[in-house]
């Protein structure tokens, strides 16, 4: 019994001495921080997602204080409210945040594609992609192991019928899934978008058609249908310039394969169209 007491006491005493040393050091060698830092930091949501391009919320707050050129609307999860709050604390003009949501640009679900081999390795997209571009017949498409769902901080991604889906009403636009996807098929689009191209295949039309019934075959019908010059086919794949898009949905109506899909965004739940 006495042995146990001595052991516990000695560790406690050593710990207490160390604590006293640190308390004294912290007191006498205290470096005053910029008094705006706690205020700026308090405005940020604290998700540490990195969407702003800095290492976490602390890094962004420091950059905002030290460099007046750093824009105050980079926090996408926080949205307009955070940008306004930051601008108020820093004494700057308010800049709107362009809310963005992630979209998995693939419609190659189990009914549209086949497997070119039976994959039995590690059940992650990163591992599967290293083996001949993944088991799916289309080497551009979603493999459906859910690496993106694993990194999503708000559980906005679900796996359905072999491909991932992002729920735009839940997505906070942090972009972590975009950086994770080994096939780079997740893209950020403005939350106000109405049409998106759900295909990433740059193969020729015939090859794409063979691999997936829902893929973009580069037929140019959408490009011709678009009245505002927003849709262009590059390398056998349609691309929509969301800044020029007027949401007329002519490309959606013209697409023969369904690669261009209607998109009900939402971004921040307070978007008026949602309610």
């Amino acid at each position: 019994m006495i042995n146990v007491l001595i052991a516990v006491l000695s560790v406690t005493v050593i710990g207490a001495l160390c604590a006293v040393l640190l308390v004294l050091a912290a007191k006498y060698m205290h470096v005053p921080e910029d008094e705006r830092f706690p205020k700026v930091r308090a405005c940020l949501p604290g998700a540490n997602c990195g969407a702003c391009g800095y290492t976490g919320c602390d890094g962004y707050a420091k950059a905002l204080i030290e460099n007046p050129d750093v824009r105050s609307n980079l926090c996408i999860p926080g949205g307009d409210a955070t940008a306004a709050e930051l601008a108020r604390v820093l004494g700057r003009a308010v800049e709107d945040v362009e809310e963005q949501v992630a979209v998995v640009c693939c419609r190659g679900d189990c009914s549209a594609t086949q497997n070119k081999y039976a994959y039995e390795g590690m059940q992650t997209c990163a591992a599967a992609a290293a083996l001949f571009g993944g088991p799916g017949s289309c080497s551009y498409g979603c493999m459906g192991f859910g690496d993106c769902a694993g990194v999503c901080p708000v559980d906005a991604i679900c796996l359905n019928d072999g491909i991932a889906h992002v729920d735009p009403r839940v997505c906070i636009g942090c972009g972590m899934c975009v950086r994770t996807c080994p096939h780079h098929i997740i893209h950020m689009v403005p939350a106000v978008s109405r049409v998106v191209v759900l295909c990433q295949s740059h193969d020729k039309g015939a090859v794409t058609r063979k691999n997936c019934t829902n893929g973009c075959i580069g037929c140019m019908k959408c490009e011709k249908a678009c009245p505002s010059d927003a849709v262009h086919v590059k390398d056998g794949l349609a691309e929509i310039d969301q800044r020029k898009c007027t949401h007329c949905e002519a490309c959606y109506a013209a697409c023969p394969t369904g690669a261009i899909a209607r998109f009900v965004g939402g971004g921040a739940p307070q978007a008026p169209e949602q309610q």
Partner: protein
Amino acid sequence: MKELIVILMGAVLVNNYVLSQFLGICPFLGVSKKVDQAVGMGIAVTFVMLVASAVTWPIQRFLLDRFELGYLQTIVFILVIAALVQFTEIVLKKYLPALHKSLGIYLPLITTNCAVLGVTINNISDGYNFIESLVSSLGCGLGFLLAMILFSGVRGRMEGNESAVPASFRGLPITLTAAAIVSLSFLGFGGVIENLFG
């Protein structure tokens, strides 16, 4: 005096903690991109090693040995090292803010730098007295500093010559390969001390 020189030189060259015993690899790879940062890290680690040995040796001798508490060695030493690293961080933040900023996350990580724990435990298990353990930790710290400086020089040349590195080796693979070659070169010091002073 001769024994102290043997211990010092042995710790720096022959039993170099990083390159011969492979302790403290994390900061070795993490902070060796620039020479000035590498020097800062090396000095910080040397300082922590010295103070940690000065504190842990009496603890071992007068507390743990006396009350037969040898099994508490690891936990007590880590406690002391963690406190010292925190203390070093506070001091650096106050007096050398530039170095504090450039070391960043690697400074708190000295806490878990196994080279620091390794040197304190080896001092005990090698049966050194107080002066000898101080000299040994100084030597280990200097050896760490030397390894950091050498390797940051090698890395500086590689970073400037990205195109000379085969594409699949760029980044971490070539860094580890270079570390292995620098480590091989230290094999050449084996036997030097015995032949000089033996």
